[in-house]
């Protein structure tokens, strides 16, 4: 092999547009390289990933994927090759810059895979269009612009509506459809804050969007591994679309003409490895001639390629890495059949349907509409042998309590404007289509409003018609029940339609002998036998491809779709558990449905069911496999929620008894338990009238934390500062009743928040770690910055934490992982919650302490833990900081403020000699920038101002111009930090904040709100939102801002030590 050491760039934290798929691609690349005996160096600060585990890369750097840091790593490691295409846009952009600056050449690092010219052309929208023009391939009429004026001129020439697209961006950032000039200006204002060039293009209305995944080797062999059809028309980003593989509505001629063009482009660019080509296809060409346009080519692994890998069983990233090393496609044996070749195009005998998962509701003020820029945070993929089966599975996989194509929330809401919602899509659109069909909209009408090909609408209509049929005649017999199951109806939905429970239907179904069958995904539609067990269930069959594996196996439930609050960390915990099962001589069976994960790579487990994490499906698999047991505590909250029903059904749950899980999760039961143990908790109660809630709040004192138990849309939890606010809140919340009471807790101010991660066996602690939050309580633990080892916890507090944990472990008879969140004020500790499952912080704690908590957890399941693995906090001569990644800029309108509700999409963690170093590196890893232009400060209320005093010296030392709102500027100036006063936006005077943001005079904004102050105009919101829209680093939390400013003034970015993970060890 030509290469001996290769550096791989990861994609950093999960964010909208760049998520878990790059853990999958990077992990496969590392595997492929290791097989060739190549040493791998990985740069990726995303500590929750599997690629940054001991079992993969040889050397890991938890550092920002930026040219500055990567250059230093190159100098140190002296690799001979670099892989840029496995870490998304982040890695690609970093690589481009390293190349441009001549750093790669200087250090003799060769770029593996596609030539840099191919990347440059495909990333620069103008160059790409020119290239295609030369190659004789059609692209939409377009022209690039570098200024707003230029763009407006081009738009006039092309004619409205126009499509705005930006280069070198991800997930459609800065893009949009402009119907008229004002809209175009609006899009460009934001767009140019992020990129320097945009493309103004003819808007193609309601074209089909089709994608091809293409692989090419250096011998010019070129295959398209998968094609995919977006159910949603062009104009809705592929990441926001429902995507079907393979395409359904294309004729042979259309399919292969586009395929040939994709190959032609790939050859013309000299791609080596994998890439994705997106097309627009006219569904009704005027003269009957095929009319297509190329939308873009991504010269790297992408979200689509991860999806294609899972849809076909063809490990694209693994193959791409081999090809990048110079191997030929003909040298690579298909890992599924073990006899055929990777030089082929998979034939499917099933369909897959991908549906994105959005969490827009979680964001205050965010716009609901979806379009050409990504907002979704995750996705699922349903596999079936009818479209209906795959589609309804996928909807259930979203884990949003939808049972299938029809949502009762939508059908019961008679006030919905169906027509409008069909025209302007939101995440709800799929249910709106079903509802429209229910209300007898014609297929053609829905087509003309949505642009969704009638083929799909007919399929959904088929589902709706079957429901109507069942409602007419509610008796179930073998024929109609089998038919409903073949169309993907759940037992629960059938039960709801026939006035019985899902379990009743299950009983009837089994009595009638209606069971799902287990099919393998073999890449060749049965032409050759498969040697791997990549599986799905279908009712459109009559045989099983495999036999149950029996007591030597253990089922591990994965995490389901990534979403706010549950993402790659639970894939890490799942995969880590799977690995450990080997030690206990158990064959692992994974159930998961998220195509972005590593746990759904078929070489991770003995058997992989790409299936729903619903009770029904888990029970089906359980009954078929008849395993030793099932693990519910390593995949986050989704599997944890199944514990009770599975146990009741007779499944053997490994670890803590589900009855105890319930004791911990039921607020009242848990509260009683804490009282019994004499452990403090913030005062709380449940109320169904305003009067009683107010009385309570006044008794314990405002602020209070309120949680409605029924949420229609919008936020769950809220801190309420005054009686007035509480009254308003009651007015707004639609449902408060004895069935849906409001929980009110005392909100403890200025409290430190502490995280405990531990494992116990039969109630005895086997490993135990404490970490602390930088922000005070009130910032959701998923958004908070977390430090290990804790720096500011008294020994006395530590002892108490241990005591509480021991008591809880014993009382709840915990076996397996658990996590406790506590508040500490002085030396008083109160507990806010306990999770009897692995938590978000498990990968962080495991990697930082060097003790794999999952290993111990799995050992505990088998009652084979030895003595406790002691973690000596004093033995660590380093500090690690975990920092959240936010994606506010993509969620138009969303208020980018840290609050009790989680809003971050990902996380990173970095190491350092002290908190400042670790935190600064982590902050830089999530897109933080060292300010170079100016700092804007606005501090609400007196308390915030006083607390800011100790930051003034640090800010001064940065020698940057400081700007502030009226009172803040006065306060700062009085305290020795001259600050220029800027008018608030609503004051409508000059110089104002917005002007300074727009003119690029400010690159750090600190906005601290005083929540006790009542305002008519929420200027703070506007400041925050403008900061985010202008790509300005924003801090809304005093503690976090303080740490950042201190780090800036005490650290020099050029001198930050560059050390690998191995170099940080406990002494």
């Amino acid at each position: 092999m030509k290469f001996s050491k290769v550096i791989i760039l990861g994609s950093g934290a999960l964010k909208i547009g760049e998520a878990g798929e790059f853990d999958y691609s990077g992990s496969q690349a590392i595997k492929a390289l290791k097989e060739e005996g190549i040493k791998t160096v990985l740069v990726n600060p995303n500590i929750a990933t599997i690629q940054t585990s001991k079992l993969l890369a040889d050397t890991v750097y938890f550092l920002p994927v930026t040219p500055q840091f990567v250059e230093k790593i190159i100098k140190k490691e002296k690799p001979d090759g670099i892989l840029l295409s496995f870490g998304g846009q982040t890695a690609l952009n970093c690589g481009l810059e390293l190349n441009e600056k001549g750093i790669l050449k200087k250090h003799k690092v060769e770029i593996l895979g596609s030539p840099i010219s191919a990347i440059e052309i495909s990333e620069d929208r103008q160059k790409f269009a020119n290239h295609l023009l030369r190659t004789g391939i059609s692209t939409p009429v377009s022209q690039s612009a570098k200024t707003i004026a230029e763009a407006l001129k081009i738009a006039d020439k092309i004619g409205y509506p126009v499509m705005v697209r930006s280069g070198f961006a991800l997930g459609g950032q800065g893009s949009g459809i402009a119907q008229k000039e004002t809209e175009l200006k609006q899009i460009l204002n934001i767009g140019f804050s992020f990129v320097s060039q945009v493309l103004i293009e003819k808007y193609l209305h309601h074209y089909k969007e089709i994608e091809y995944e293409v692989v090419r080797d250096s011998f010019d062999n070129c295959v398209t591994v998968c094609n995919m059809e977006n159910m949603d028309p062009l104009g809705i980003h592929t990441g926001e679309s429902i995507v079907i593989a393979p395409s359904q509505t294309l004729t042979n001629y259309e399919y292969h003409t586009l395929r040939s063009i994709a190959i032609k482009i790939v050859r013309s660019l000299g791609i080596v490895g994998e890439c994705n080509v997106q097309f627009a296809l006219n569904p009704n060409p005027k003269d009957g001639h095929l009319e297509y346009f190329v939308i873009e080519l991504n010269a790297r692994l992408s979200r689509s390629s991860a999806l294609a890998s899972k849809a076909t069983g063809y490990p694209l990233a693994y193959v791409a890495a081999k090809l990048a090393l110079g191997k030929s496609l003909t040298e690579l044996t298909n890992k599924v059949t073990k006899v055929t070749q990777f030089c082929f195009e998979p034939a499917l005998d099933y369909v897959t349907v991908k549906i994105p998962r959005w969490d827009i509701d979680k964001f205050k003020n965010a716009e609901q509409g979806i379009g050409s820029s990504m907002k979704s945070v995750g996705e699922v993929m349903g596999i079936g042998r009818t479209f209906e089966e795959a589609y309804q599975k996928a909807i259930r996989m979203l884990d949003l309590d939808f049972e299938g194509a029809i949502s009762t929330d939508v059908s019961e809401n008679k006030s919905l404007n169906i027509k409008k919602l069909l025209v302007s899509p939101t995440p709800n659109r799929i249910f709106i289509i079903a509802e429209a069909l229910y209300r007898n909209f014609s297929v053609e009408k829905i087509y003309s409003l949505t642009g969704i090909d009638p083929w799909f609408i007919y399929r959904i209509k088929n589902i709706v018609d079957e429901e109507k049929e069942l409602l007419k005649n509610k008796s179930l017999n073998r024929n109609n029940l089998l038919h409903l199951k073949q169309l993907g109806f759940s037992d629960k939905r059938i039960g709801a339609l026939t006035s019985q429970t899902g379990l009743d239907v299950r009983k009837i179904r089994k009595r009638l002998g209606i069971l799902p069958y287990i099919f393998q995904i073999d890449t060749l539609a049965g032409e050759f036998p498969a040697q791997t067990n990549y599986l799905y269930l279908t009712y459109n069959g009559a045989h099983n491809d495999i036999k149950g594996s029996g007591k030597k196996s253990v089922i591990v439930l994965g995490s389901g779709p990534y979403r706010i609050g549950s993402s790659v960390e639970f894939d890490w915990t799942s995969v880590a558990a799977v690995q450990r099962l080997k030690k206990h001589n158990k064959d692992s069976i994974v159930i998961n449905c998220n195509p972005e994960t590593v746990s759904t790579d078929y070489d991770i487990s003995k058997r992989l069911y790409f299936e729903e994490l619903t009770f029904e499906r888990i029970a089906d698999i359980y009954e078929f496999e008849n395993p030793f047991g099932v693990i519910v505590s390593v995949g986050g909250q989704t599997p944890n929620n199944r514990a009770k029903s599975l146990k009741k059904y007779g499944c053997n749950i490994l670890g803590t008894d589900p009855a105890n899980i319930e004791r911990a999760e039921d607020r009242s039961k848990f509260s009683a338990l804490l009282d019994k143990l004499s452990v403090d908790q913030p005062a709380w109660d449940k109320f169904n009238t305003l009067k009683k809630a107010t009385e309570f709040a006044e008794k314990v004192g405002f602020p209070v934390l309120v949680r409605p138990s029924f949420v229609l849309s919008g936020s769950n939890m809220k801190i309420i500062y005054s009686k007035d606010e509480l009254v308003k809140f009651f007015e707004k919340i639609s449902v408060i009743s004895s069935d849906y009471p409001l929980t009110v807790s005392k909100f403890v101010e200025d409290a430190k928040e502490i995280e405990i991660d531990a494992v116990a066996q039969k109630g005895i602690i086997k490993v135990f770690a404490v970490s602390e939050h930088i922000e005070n309580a009130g910032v959701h633990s998923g958004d908070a910055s977390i430090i290990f080892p804790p720096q500011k916890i008294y020994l006395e507090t530590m002892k108490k934490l241990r005591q509480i944990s021991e008591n809880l472990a014993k009382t709840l008879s915990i076996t397996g992982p658990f996590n406790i969140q506590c508040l500490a004020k002085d030396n008083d500790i109160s507990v806010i919650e306990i999770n009897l499952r692995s938590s978000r912080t498990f990968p962080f704690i495991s990697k930082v302490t060097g003790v794999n908590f999952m290993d111990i957890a799995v050992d505990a399941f088998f009652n084979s833990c030895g003595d406790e693995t002691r973690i000596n906090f004093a033995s660590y001569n380093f500090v690690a900081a975990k920092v959240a990644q936010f994606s506010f800029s993509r969620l138009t309108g969303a208020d980018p403020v840290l609050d009790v509700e989680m809003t971050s999409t990902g996380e990173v963690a970095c190491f350092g000699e002290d908190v400042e170093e670790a935190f600064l590196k982590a902050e830089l890893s999530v897109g933080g920038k060292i300010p170079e232009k100016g700092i804007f400060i606005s501090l609400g209320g007196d308390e915030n101002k006083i607390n800011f005093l100790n930051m003034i010296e640090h800010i001064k030392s940065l020698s940057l111009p400081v700007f502030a709102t009226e009172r803040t500027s006065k306060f700062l100036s009085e305290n020795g930090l001259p600050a220029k006063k800027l008018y608030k936006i609503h004051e409508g005077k000059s110089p104002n904040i917005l002007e300074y943001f727009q003119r690029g005079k400010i690159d750090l904004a600190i906005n601290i709100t005083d929540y006790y102050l009542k305002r008519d105009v929420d200027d703070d919101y506007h400041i925050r939102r403008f900061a985010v829209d202008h790509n300005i680093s924003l801090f809304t939390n005093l503690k976090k801002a303080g740490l950042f400013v201190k780090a800036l003034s005490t650290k020099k970015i050029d001198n930050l030590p560059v050390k690998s993970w191995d170099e940080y060890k406990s002494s």
Partner: protein
Amino acid sequence: MSKLVLKNGLTFEGKSFGADKSSAGEVVFSTGMMGYPESLTDPSYKGQILVLTYPLVGNYGIPDKKFWEAEKIMISGLIVSDYINTPYHFQSKKTLSDWLKEENIPALEIKDTRLLTQIIREKGTFLGKIVNGENIDFYDPDNENLVEKVSVKDIEIKSFSKSARNILLIDCGAKKNIQRAFSKRGVNVITVPWDFDLTKPNKLPKIDAVVISNGPGNPKFVGQTIENIKKLFKLNIPVLGVCLGNQLLALAAGGDTKKLKYGHRSQNQPCIMDGTNRCFITTQNHGFEVSIIPPNFKTWFTNANDGSNEGIIHKRKPIMSVQFHPEATPGPHDTEWIFDYFLTRIKSKPRSDLGYARIKVGPY
């Protein structure tokens, strides 16, 4: 109840969506995901009941006849998992079901086409029958000359330019796209029946090269064509064989053929060009293979999956053949270059400098 009955006694119950009649033949499966109108009209499927492994069939209806591969449906019956009766496509003229009924071809929806495929994969191709009411006998297409049934009866010339070169297409059941592919390349295609003997006196213009087409069944039943090909060798005229044409050429040149266990019927067969790293994705539809390479020929292509022969080429002369379908339809266009290459091996030049007015062909 309609059913599919296999010779070994296995029965699959199904729902009929084609003609209400019974039909017997050899049961074969194809894993291609695209192009059911093209497949159903491929004469190579003569005598066969076709199982499509891709579960959803009928999605985009049936286009105008000019896009088919023959004038009518060629298969004896169709088996799918899920029939779609609500097609939508701007080219669709009718549903698949209506077409099958019009052409009197039975078709069944049986859910577990995968099981059927696995049985064929393990046991080899089976004789079978679709039974709609009336029970009928099994029928073995390997025991007769099917080529005779699908070949043209008379000489056909679609369009003719005096200045262009002339290719004789021996129609053993040729897919229309072979003729389209050559026409697109500016040569005249003269289609002749399977037993046409070029060495006998004829009124045809001067022939520059001969193409032996694809076609159904066992090559050894097409003795007349094999004899005629032997005579061609003596004429020293360039010859290209496609699919069945590959087998006939091999037999004529002194090689041998044998039946494959379950054949190659798909659009994703990797073929490696001998002595290179180049691999091509091809469409295939055949049940027999060339098992002995004839003297003076060498292997041209080999199947990367099972090592079977995918083409032979004469060591010196412009005589060559491929087992796959360079004309595609359905399937990838990746080996269309075979036609270009063949044309470069024809010594005679077009008869005028004006060349040939390129006519646009193809489904659009």
